[in-house]
């Protein structure tokens, strides 16, 4: 009995694979779209700011003031766009011709030489708070290191902060975002393709014909998901490799652990797809439900973009039901930190739990519809 069930599942899997291979649309969704998504989001979702246009109002005209200006320009973050004076400051900012203005008060040189504290002013366009914050921190860093040049031996403040950033020393946002993209894209393609594949059979009536055969819901569903699991896994690995090649994502951990994490995550995604297919009767409904169930939680509630720790408490509770939350943490750990199974096992266990729960739910519903 067990072997015949296996044979029947295999017959379904073989049929499904043949259908997929002959169906360009599904193939494109499964194999091409993910990499396309990666390119699109990878290049567009980037918080690193370079080439900020800056104007300088140098009222000191000393060697020190010129040194400060060149420190800004040489940092690579700022492009000197204009010279400003009292009258042009406002218009430059109003017309967004520059994003920042550096005002060096007269007496900077003298103050530095006599070791008197003095402040330079940076005016920022705050219409984009994110950009402004980033630009401000750039400017602070530059001014601070410039000022350190003049008093290397002078009394330092009692407490000095010397930040050092691990895993992503340049704080490139791509390194933070790409693992999220991998989770996001994998989730969408896997959920959508599985949900559609079963609902399509319902819609076309082939499902009824299959139900007339002495085949259980179990072997049928297993047979149908095997090809999608395999293709989604290949596709996900493709994204990982593309992310390494295009965005310089490191791969510091073990490929085996990565494969395990990907597989567990995919099983959960396929489970969601199956569950949707047990609820929806038309491909349209299934598609919308699948997008909603995969896109929103993975984008918003997984820590992909918005940190979970800064969400309101009730949303934080909701995130426990989002598999991407666990996968993302494991993925970042494996890829960026190179940690092994000993640190990610809890997340993997959570993925196993999610997979079991959603598969059971889907199986119960599908079986009830079957007979």
């Amino acid at each position, binding site marked *: 009995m067990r072997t015949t069930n296996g044979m*029947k599942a295999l*017959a*379904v899997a073989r049929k499904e694979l043949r259908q997929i291979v002959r169906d360009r649309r599904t193939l494109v969704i499964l194999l091409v779209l993910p990499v396309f998504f990666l390119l699109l989001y990878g290049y567009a979702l980037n918080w690193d700011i370079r080439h900020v246009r800056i104007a300088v109002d140098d009222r000191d005209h000393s060697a020190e003031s010129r040194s400060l200006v060149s420190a800004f320009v040489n940092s690579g973050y700022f492009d000197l766009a204009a010279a400003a004076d009292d009258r042009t400051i406002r218009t430059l900012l109003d017309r967004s011709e520059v994003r920042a203005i550096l005002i060096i008060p007269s007496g900077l040189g003298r103050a530095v030489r006599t070791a008197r504290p003095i402040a330079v002013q940076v005016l920022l366009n705050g219409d984009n708070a994110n950009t402004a914050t980033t630009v401000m921190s750039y400017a602070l860093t530059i001014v601070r290191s410039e000022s350190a040049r003049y008093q290397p031996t002078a009394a330092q403040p009692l407490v000095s902060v010397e930040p050092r950033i691990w895993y992503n020393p340049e704080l490139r946002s791509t390194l933070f975002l790409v693992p999220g993209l991998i989770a996001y894209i994998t989730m969408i393609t896997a959920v959508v393709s599985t949900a559609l594949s079963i609902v399509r059979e319902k819609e*076309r009536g082939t499902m009824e014909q299959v*139900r007339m055969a002495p*085949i259980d819901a179990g072997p049928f569903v297993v047979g149908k998901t095997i090809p999608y699991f395999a293709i989604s896994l290949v596709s996900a690995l493709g994204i990982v490799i593309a992310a390494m090649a295009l965005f310089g994502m490191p791969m510091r951990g073990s490929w085996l652990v990565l494969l395990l994490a990907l597989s567990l995550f995919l099983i959960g995604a396929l489970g969601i797809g199956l569950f949707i297919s047990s609820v929806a009767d038309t491909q349209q409904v299934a598609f919308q439900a699948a997008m909603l169930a995969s896109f929103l939680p993975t984008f918003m509630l997984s820590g992909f973009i918005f940190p979970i720790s800064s969400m309101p408490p009730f949303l934080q509770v909701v995130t426990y039901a989002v598999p991407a939350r666990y996968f993302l943490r494991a993925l970042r750990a494996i890829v960026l930190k190179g940690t092994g199974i000993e640190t990610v096992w809890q997340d993997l266990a959570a993925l196993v739990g999610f997979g079991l729960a959603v598969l059971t739910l889907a199986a119960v519903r599908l079986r009830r519809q079957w*007979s």
Partner: protein
Amino acid sequence: MSAISVHDLTRRFGDFVAVDRLTFEVREGEIFGFLGSNGAGKSTAIRMMCGLLKPSGGTATVGGIDVGRDPEGVKRRIGYMSQRFSLYERLTVDQNIRFFAGIYGLRRDRLETRRRFVLEMSGLQSREHVRAADLAGGWRQRLGLGCAILHEPPIVFLDEPTGGVDPVSRREFWRLIDGLSARGVTVLVTTHYLDEAEHCHRVAIIHGGRLAALGTTAELKRAFHGRTIIEVHAGRPVDAMRLLDDMPDVEKTSVFGTAVHAVVSMKPGEAARTIRERLEGGGVAVTRLGPVEPSLEDVFLDVAERATQ
């Protein structure tokens, strides 16, 4: 022993009774027709007999197995093909056959002989590698039947198998059904093409979920016994019908093409004479008039009407 035995089979959907206490037996090797208008409950009854739908009441025994107790056992012994039999359009003829053989659990050696049989039966030997989507309706229907009987079931259910197929292909399809029956396979087939009912050994007319009549087509026509159908060709059929409807012995009238059929509770000769006198007395010129054999359509309409009352 009966191949199919149905007793008080009932299915309700909420307040609506789709199938109402259906009781009948189908003999082995018989072609048993289910006749009824759309929504009469034919498909619901078939789906219950196949184990696809749980009955609300009553029993159905198919191939000696109680469907309610062991639907899976029934599934192994029957073939089923519905009006919207759906092959996998992107797959070839051969791949479709192999898939269905796979889910029926056919072993490799048996698969090969059955595969060849189905290709030959459906006349698709040279088109093994054509995609199902590219087959014309008639071929598709025959391939569908082939896939449904790959596992050589002794009982086959066909739910409007010829819907939307051209007349030539329909006749070809019925030749296949006759062939199955000749080999001892029991076939239960639904249709609303009345000419197809003539192929059946026995016909059940289903109306409003109930069994309205059952018998051979000849028996059903004889149910008109004691009554006569008079076919009237008159210059003014509408006036003729009005006059006929007013006659106490005329049960009902209906339009058949350009003629009017009147069901009269009299012997043929007497009926013809009375009607001619009444029509000519009423000023309607009669071109031709005489008793006719009831067609299956007459029977069907009559049964349906009586069942409604």
